[in-house]
């Protein structure tokens, strides 16, 4: 093997994996075991003390999951990763490592609704206080920084789609404040956007979506960019101070540019317990092997569907950054030139009734709450996920009566459009 850097597709198939050393199995085996036998007391002590590399217990590390971690780290251009049970668990792990009770972090107002809930409610019970900022307004983000701010959290491509964040501009704010920038890269995936190249320090994913891509397994991951100097201040004692959990070991000093990932694993995952199943890791890994092929098709299909809807007389508007007149088109060209993703919303002139009728009239589309599946998915938020809100609350959340969200799959685009066309004809 020459020492040139492998390309993205090669890494998608190979990074982190090798033939199984014991059996030669070429696909990564599912190590469905809770625990790993020790050679002797010395080796056990070295493993527990983090002096040796190796597996103890699947809550902390597992050889199947480790391949998934090394692969996603390589695809993102990070140093290391920690896979966990879900995207929400990844966010919990990141903030557990960064925050102490009473600390603050800044988060974009345009986030996946589940993240908004997690930050507004669960995190507050830990004393981790979110300050919301509109990330289209860089000055507003900068104004939200206080001496207690420990991080900034954004999505590269925000759910329910259409919103592209100016990562480099937000990274500059974070750098000036001496705090890390965390980017949720779920919707874009590293195929479309690599946030570390634009100044991010930590990337998180829900692997449940496009990364796994088949809608069959929950999973999340934390990726360490290896870029942040955790010892430059005393803001991050989990990394910069001797840890009582490990007899006074200092994690950043000991593990250097992958120290954040190690801290998330041995101080976070070890104690919080949101471990991923090795079987899920296997399925997600299998999905990632075809990530570039799927994303290319997802994006090409979504572009055509968005263009079709834009020209439809019953459609009032389409929010998709791939459309040349879209507000976020310039940012999409800069940060994700290979495509604008495959999740977006559009507004029906017929309002609430038309939305309800449309999800009932489609045949190929599945009416579900997930995104990033091989299958095309549809949801009318006002009658489902956002049903309990008032009209005003729905409008603010981008889930007004007329809004329909699509996640475009990898079927033949003619069939996707034909399905929408027939359903739109039915809604009157």
């Amino acid at each position, binding site marked *: *093997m020459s*020492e040139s850097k*492998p390309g993205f597709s*090669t*890494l998608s198939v*190979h*990074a*982190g994996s*090798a*033939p*199984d*050393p*014991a059996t*030669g199995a*070429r696909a990564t085996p599912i190590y469905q075991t809770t625990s*790993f*036998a*020790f*050679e002797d007391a010395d*080796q056990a002590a*070295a493993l527990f*003390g*983090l*002096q*040796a*590399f*190796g*597996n103890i217990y699947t809550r902390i*590390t597992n*050889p199947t*999951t*480790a*391949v998934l*971690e*090394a692969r996603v*780290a*390589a695809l993102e251009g*990070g*140093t*290391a*990763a*920690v*896979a966990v049970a879900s995207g929400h668990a990844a966010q919990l792990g990141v903030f557990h490592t960064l925050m102490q009770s009473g600390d603050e972090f800044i988060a974009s107002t345009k986030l996946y609704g589940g993240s908004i809930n997690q930050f507004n409610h669960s995190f507050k019970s830990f004393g981790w206080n979110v300050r919301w900022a509109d990330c289209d307004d860089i000055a507003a983000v900068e104004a939200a920084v206080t001496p207690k701010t420990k991080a900034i959290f954004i999505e590269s491509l925000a759910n329910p789609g259409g919103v592209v964040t100016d990562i480099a501009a937000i990274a500059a704010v974070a750098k000036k404040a001496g705090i890390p920038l965390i980017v949720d890269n779920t919707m874009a995936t590293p195929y479309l956007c690599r946030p570390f190249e634009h100044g991010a320090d930590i990337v998180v994913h829900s692997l449940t979506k496009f990364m796994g891509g088949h809608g069959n397994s929950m999973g999340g991951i934390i990726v360490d960019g290896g870029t942040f100097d955790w010892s430059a201040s005393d803001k991050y004692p989990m990394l910069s101070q*001797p840890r009582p959990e*490990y*007899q*006074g*070991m*200092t994690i950043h*000093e*000991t593990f*250097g540019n*992958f120290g954040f*990932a*190690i801290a998330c*694993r041995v101080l976070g995952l070890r104690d919080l317990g949101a471990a991923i199943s090795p079987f899920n890791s296997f399925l997600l890994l299998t999905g990632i092997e075809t990530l570039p092929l799927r994303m290319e098709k997802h994006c090409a299909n979504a572009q055509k569907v968005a263009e079709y809807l834009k020209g439809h007389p019953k459609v009032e508007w389409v929010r998709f950054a791939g459309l040349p007149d879209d507000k976020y088109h310039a940012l999409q060209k800069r940060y994700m030139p290979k495509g604008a993703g495959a999740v977006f919303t559009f507004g029906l002139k017929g309002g609430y009734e038309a939305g309800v009728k449309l999800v009932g009239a489609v045949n190929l589309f599945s009416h579900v709450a997930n995104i990033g599946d091989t299958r095309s998915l549809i949801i009318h938020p006002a009658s489902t996920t956002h049903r309990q809100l008032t009209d005003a609350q729905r409008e603010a959340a981008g889930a007004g009566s007329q809004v329909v969200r699509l996640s475009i799959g990898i079927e033949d685009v003619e069939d996707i459009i034909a399905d929408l066309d027939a359903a739109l004809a039915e809604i009157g």
Partner: protein
Amino acid sequence: MDHDRYDDAHIRAILREVKTVAMVGASPNNVRPSFFVLKYLLSKGYDVIPVNPGQAGREIGGVPAVASLAAIDRPVDMVDIFRNSQAAGGVVDEALALDPLPKVIWMQLGVRNEEAAARAEQRGVTVVMNRCPKIEYARLCGEIGWAGVSSGVVSSRKPTMAAGMQRFGLGKKTD
């Protein structure tokens, strides 16, 4: 020699060839990075000699420590320096006073001394700076992947198993 990046083949060749390692600045404190590296290199079969004037005559990681490089009673293949960049210069000069000369002088992560490196290279000694032999060994043999760390190595060759549980090696030179 470009000290900003090293080819994997270069590092692998060093770690395969070297047998005896003098570790200057080895700490007896079992949560210090130097102790981690010492234990790891011992577990990989290297003959590691801790060098620490304050610990001479005592054991570090089960191995007798010596006060200085000059006090080592056998030829040393590699000197691994766990001192700051400035202090590394003096250690390099002590290493260059050894007879026979070490084949390799290795400065740990965060340690770089260009002038000292040039002096060593003039004498034909290979210099590695700002790297950790534990991380490099674990990266090249594949063990580092067990911690979710990206090794940067893409290969469809089977890892080399070593004796015991959960141990990989670097294999033979023909691999």
